[in-house]
Every structure is written in C-alpha cells, then in structure tokens.
C-alpha cells in the first residue's frame, strides 16, 4: 500500500513538472499544462500525507520563540 501511495505521489510530481518542459518544447499548449498540473496537485495531496507524515520525525515541535 505504501509503495502504491508513493507511486501515486511521484506521478503527481511528474504531472506537475513534466508538462512545463513540453510547453517549452512546443509540444503541448499552456492550457493542457495547467490542467495536468492541477491533476498532479490532487494526486500529490491525496497520497503524500499518508506516507510522508507517518515516518517523518521533525527536530522542532513546537518551535521555541
């Protein structure tokens, strides 16, 4: 399950960044890039919290003034 979640997250990151290079190369339109980024954002936030937060220990909680 964790591996699947990670795969979804990385697919989300891919959809966030790869279309911009395709716009740069003239392969896709800007509108397509914006739509794919939106899908990437949804995929990232739907999957990353479940594997990132469970195993991340943070050095500062709560922060001191």
């Amino acid at each position, binding site marked *: 399950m964790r591996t699947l979640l990670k795969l979804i997250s990385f697919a989300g990151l891919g959809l*966030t*960044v790869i279309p*911009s290079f395709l716009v740069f190369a003239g392969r896709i339109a800007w509108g397509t890039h914006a739509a794919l*980024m939106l899908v990437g954002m949804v995929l990232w936030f739907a999957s*990353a*919290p479940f594997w990132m937060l469970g195993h991340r220990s943070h050095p500062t909680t*709560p922060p001191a*003034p």
Partner: protein
Amino acid sequence: MSTIQPRAAAAPVSPQSLADRLDAINEFDREPVTPDRLQGPGSFIGLYAGEHLAGTEFVIGPLFVAHGVAAADLVLGLLVGNLLAVLSWAFITAPIATRTRLNLYWHLRKITGPNLLFVYNIVNALMFCFLAGSMISVAATAVGLPLGLAMPKLNDVYPNSVGWVLVVFLVGTTVTALAILGFEKIAAAGQVASPWMFMVFVAAAVAVLPRLGVTSVGDFWRVASERIWTGAPAHGVAKFSFWHIMFFAWFCNMAMHIGMADMTVLRYAKRWQYGFLSGCGMYLGHFVAWIASGVLCAAALGDVAPGPIAYLGAGVTGAATVVIASWTTANPTLYRAGMALQTISPNWKRWKVTLAAGAVTTAAAIFPALMMRLLDFVALYGLILMPMGAVIFADFWLLPKLGLRQRYAEWKSLLFSWPAALTWVMTLVACWAINAMWGLEIFFLGLPGWFIATVLYVGLSAIQQPARLQPARAEA
C-alpha cells in the same frame, strides 16, 4: 569550549514572577537534548529544504527584478551570499548548538537573565506578527484573483480598495482560526507541500519562458540579461548591485544563523557539520525559487503581485501554491508569536493569545507596503535580533579566553543582564548612526553590527566582572 552545567539555583522570585511565567511556557523544553533524541542528516535536509520554500519566495524574486539587478550580478550574488549563509550556520550556529544542546530560549536566559529575555521575546513576537502579516498579504493576492481584485502596485503603501481590505481580513481570519485549531497539522501540511511546491516554482518558470522569447536552452542567458534582469530599476525604487544581492542572500536569515535562533533546530544534530545541510534550503529556495519567481515577474511585464504571476505560469495550481505556501508559513509564525506574547499574560488561554497575535498580524497585512517592502523588512527583522546572537557567540567563545565567566546572569542569579541589554541597544543605535551618517543601506548593516555587538559585549562584560579579569591578566 563550554560544558553543559546544571542549572544554577533559581532566582528568588515569587510564584507569579516574570521568570516563572516565562518558564511555565517552556516547561518541557529546558533540558539539553538527550543523545537518544538526536536526528540524522535526513531530518535536516527535509527541514531546511521545506523551511526556505515559502510564500516570501514569490515576492523576493520579483522585487529583485523591480530593483533592476543585472543577470550576472543576481546569479553571482546569490551563489556567494547563500554560501556565506551556509557557512554562518555551519561555523557559528551549529558548533554552539551541538555543544550546549539547548534551545535559544534557555541558552539566552542563562546569559541575559529572564527579564531581558522577556523584552527579547516581545520584540521577537512583533517581528513574527509582521512576517506572518506579509504572508497574509501574499495569500490575498491569490485569493483575490477570481474576484477580480485590483492588485497592489510596487510603490503602494496603503490599501487600494475596500475589496483588498475585505480579502485580507478574510484570509487573516482563516489563518488565525487554523492556527488556533491546530498548529501541528498546518506545520505537517507545510512539510508535505514542500517537494511539490519546489516543482511548481520550476514548472511555472519553465512554462513561461517561450513568452519571453526563450525557445532553446542557449537563448536563456541572452533573454535573462535583456528582458528579465535588465539592470534597469522600476520607477521609484533603488538599483541593486551584486553587493545588495550577496548581502541580502547572506542576511535574509540573519536572525536564524548569526542571530542564533536555529540553535533550537541544530541542537538535535548529531554533529556540528549538519549546519552545512542548510545549503539544501539556500540553493533550492533562495536560488532556484528566487530565479523562477523573477522569470515569472518578467513574463507578467513587471507585475510583482504573487497571485497573478503564479497564475500566469501555472494556472489554478499556481494560485493554490501561493495560498498554501503563505498559509503554511504564516501559521507556525503566528504560533511562535503567540508563544512569545503569552509571556505577558500566561493566564490567558493559548487561543486568546493567538487571536490577539492574529489581529495584529491581519491589521499589518492590510498595508501592502509590508509585502512590497519585504526586502527592507526582512533585513530589519534580522538586524534587530542579530545582536543577541553576537552576545551568545561572545559569551560562548570569547569570555572564557579572557578569563571571564560565561552565563554570568545565571551564575549570579541576575534577572537582568545590563551588558547584554546595553549591547543590544548600542549596536542598534550604532547601526542607525552608520546608516544616517554614511548612508550605508540596511542590507549591509548586519556585518559591522555583528562585530560592534561582539566587541561591546566583551568590553561591557569585562566592566561587569573586573575582579575576574585581574587574576586572568596576572596569570598571563
């Protein structure tokens, strides 16, 4: 080198004294970090990379463009300035943090006494409020997009419409409510968002490059020099040189490195060399992200409002990124402000204190000058807190070499260290005088200020402890 001493006998204070009130807030954080709680390098890579990718990055890059820096000056200035910042973390903050294993609060308390620390906390809280306020302004530029809100311009000081005030109020209320409901969840959301946010910065900039006339990698430098960082400032703002960029990159986190606030983070490091890991934050956030947001600004024909420029590069995702980046920064900042302000009235519930901090923050955010003059504010913020970092440095490394006692306030059970207080005030007065007499801009004042503070604290400590200095001289 200093060794960690057990706490000296507490000052004879009443149960409701200032010292008790301060201590009650940090009750569980006063001991040195134990070896089993030390963290490996991965935690620090993630922490620094996330911490330096925030809503402010959408403002700073465009402001560099507006200040007319040339492309070569920008790149070289960022490379050198960020390197100096990393070295400051590694050679100034981390060695003390990993030897004392205490957070800034408890270490400084031993040097300044609790009453001066109280003043420091209040100043810190106000700075945090203004910093969070700038984040709320940044978020408002994205929230206002679908409403057709007229965005503030570069030289705006006051709000330009009732709509702006209402949107800021809405954003400020939401941020404050979220901070009251649960700081830790928002902080966790910030950690999750960081890798994605970095991708959005890169993607948004790459996607607008064709609009600027970049059709191949080879075109980039020519376009960067001719259309992005042209060397010509916008109307009404000062021109930035290599030195401005270098010093800004070095000192924009002055409160954290030479100001020593990141002792709180680096006390968990297994080795002092982890200070070098701050480079992950510097070169991702303060190099790539600043360049990316500068590209977006140029594509938006010089518009500096973060919401519209992010939308131009990444559509709805860009606007969402501005909101998420701002909120995830504003919330922990507001939380820290609340913690510091709670020292005034510890009987208040945390939610009431956070509400008060949120009200101050939102009121400040209504003025777009806070966002548009962010470079000056960030420089001022670091400068005001820096002298206490110099005090910590001098107390730790220099006083023992001169035969003077470290942490004198703790040793003598003093509530207020006058050498530390005078150092703080006199350093800021000296910096103001340098600015007024020689016209040295605020971005550069941190460097002379740090040396002035260090010398002052050593000198004033020698006056405070003459009896200790004489035997040391005699031995020498």
